[in-house]
C-alpha cells in the first residue's frame, strides 16, 4: 500500500479537486483506493465528491472525531467512510473494473480542534492505515491535507510515502512552493524525515488562453512571467539535486478544469488527472 499526500503550500491550488480526480482515476485503473480528507480545519472534499447530501455527512462525524478518540475505528469505517461506487454512493453511476474501490473517509464540518502532537493522534492515524491495508486491501491512500505548514500538517506528512505539492502560477504560490522545496531539500541534507515529492503545477496559463488576451502588452508580460517562472522552477529543482525524486509535471490543460468541481476522469478522453495517476504508478526515479 502506498500513501500519497496531496499538499499545497498556499490554498486555492486545485489540490482537493486533483486529489479526488486522481483517486478516482486510480480506481478506474483497477486499484483499491481510499481518499481521506485531512484538511480538517476547512474540509472541502465532500463538495468535489458530491457527498454533502448523504446521511453520513449530515450526521457530522468525521476523521477528526476518530483521531481525537471520540469514535472508534469500526464506527469510522462503517458510519463515516463512504464506498463511493456503491449503490448509495455519490459516484454509483460509474463503472469500475472488478474489485476496484474508492473509499472516501470524510472530515467533519464541525469546528474540531486537534492537537497533532498528541501521541494518540499519530497512533490512531497509524491504526487507520493498517486497517485500510489489512481489512480493505487498499492499494493507494490519498490524503488531502491542509495547505501551509501548520499543526495538522504532521498528521499527513508523518503518514505519507510520497508527497505531491500543488501550486498555481501566481507569485505567492510559486515563491511559497519554492520555499517549501528548499525546506524539503534541507530535510534531506540534514537527514531528517525526508519524503520524496513531486511538484505539480495546476492552472498554468495555456498558450491558447494567452492568445485570447486583448491587451498585447499584458499578454507579452504574462508570457514573460510564465517563462521566467518556468526557468526559476527548473533552476531550483536543479539546485535541489539532493532530492532525486523531485520531478516537475506541468499540466497546462488544468486551467479550464480548475473550477469544474466534479469527477471528470470517466469521460471519453483521458484527463490530465488520469495522466497524473498513471505517473504515480511508475516507480520513483
Amino acid at each position: 500500500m502506498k500513501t500519497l499526500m496531496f499538499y499545497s503550500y498556499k490554498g486555492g491550488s486545485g489540490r482537493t479537486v486533483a486529489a479526488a480526480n486522481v483517486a478516482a482515476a486510480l480506481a478506474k485503473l483497477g486499484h483499491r483506493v481510499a481518499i481521506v480528507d485531512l484538511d480538517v480545519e476547512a474540509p472541502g472534499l465532500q463538495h468535489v465528491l458530491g457527498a454533502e447530501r448523504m446521511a453520513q455527512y449530515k450526521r457530522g462525524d468525521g476523521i477528526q472525531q476518530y483521531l481525537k478518540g471520540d469514535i472508534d475505528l469500526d464506527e469510522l469505517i462503517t458510519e463515516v467512510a463512504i464506498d463511493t461506487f456503491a449503490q448509495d454512493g455519490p459516484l454509483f453511476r460509474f463503472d469500475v473494473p472488478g474489485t476496484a474501490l474508492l473509499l472516501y473517509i470524510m472530515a467533519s464540518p464541525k469546528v474540531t480542534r486537534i492537537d497533532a502532537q498528541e501521541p494518540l493522534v499519530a497512533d490512531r492515524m497509524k491504526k487507520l492505515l493498517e486497517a485500510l491495508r489489512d481489512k480493505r486491501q487498499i492499494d493507494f491512500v490519498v490524503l488531502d491535507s491542509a495547505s501551509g505548514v501548520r499543526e495538522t500538517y504532521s498528521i499527513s506528512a508523518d503518514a505519507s510515502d510520497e508527497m505531491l505539492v500543488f501550486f498555481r502560477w501566481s507569485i505567492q504560490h510559486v515563491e511559497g512552493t519554492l520555499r517549501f522545496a528548499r525546506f524539503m531539500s534541507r530535510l534531506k541534507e540534514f537527514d531528517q524525515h525526508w519524503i520524496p515529492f513531486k511538484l505539480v503545477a495546476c492552472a498554468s496559463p495555456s498558450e491558447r488562453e494567452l492568445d485570447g488576451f486583448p491587451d498585447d502588452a499584458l499578454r507579452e508580460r504574462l508570457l514573460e512571467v510564465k517563462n521566467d517562472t518556468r526557468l526559476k522552477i527548473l533552476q531550483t529543482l536543479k539546485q535541489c539535486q539532493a532530492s532525486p525524486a523531485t520531478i516537475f509535471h506541468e499540466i497546462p490543460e488544468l486551467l479550464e478544469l480548475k473550477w469544474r468541481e466534479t469527477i471528470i476522469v470517466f469521460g471519453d478522453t483521458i484527463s490530465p488527472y488520469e495522466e497524473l495517476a498513471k505517473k504515480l504508478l511508475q516507480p520513483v526515479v
Partner: protein
Amino acid sequence: MVWEKHGVDLLECDSFQQLMAKKGIRPRAYRTHIEAMEAADLLETICQLGDRILVLTRHEQITAKRAEVLILDLITCFAEPIEWAQRSTEIGRELREYKR
C-alpha cells in the same frame, strides 16, 4: 584550543558543516515531520553562523577564546537545534556586532 583537543583544526575547515562531519556530530532525530522542518530551518541558520565565526577567526576579528566558546555552543545547537534555538539567536545577535 578545545577543537584541537577533538582532533580538528578549525582553520583547516572550509565550513561549519564540514567541521561537524569531521567530528561526526549529527543533529538529533525528531519525532514528527513538522519538528524536522523547524529543525532543518534552524540548522541552516546555525551553519551560516558557524561559517561566519570561521571567517571572523581567519581574519582575526574575533579572539580565539571567544570563537572557541561560540563554536562549542553552536555544536550544541547543531546537535539539538530546537532545544537550543534561543542560544543560536543570541549568537546571531552577538555576531552582528562584528565588522564584515
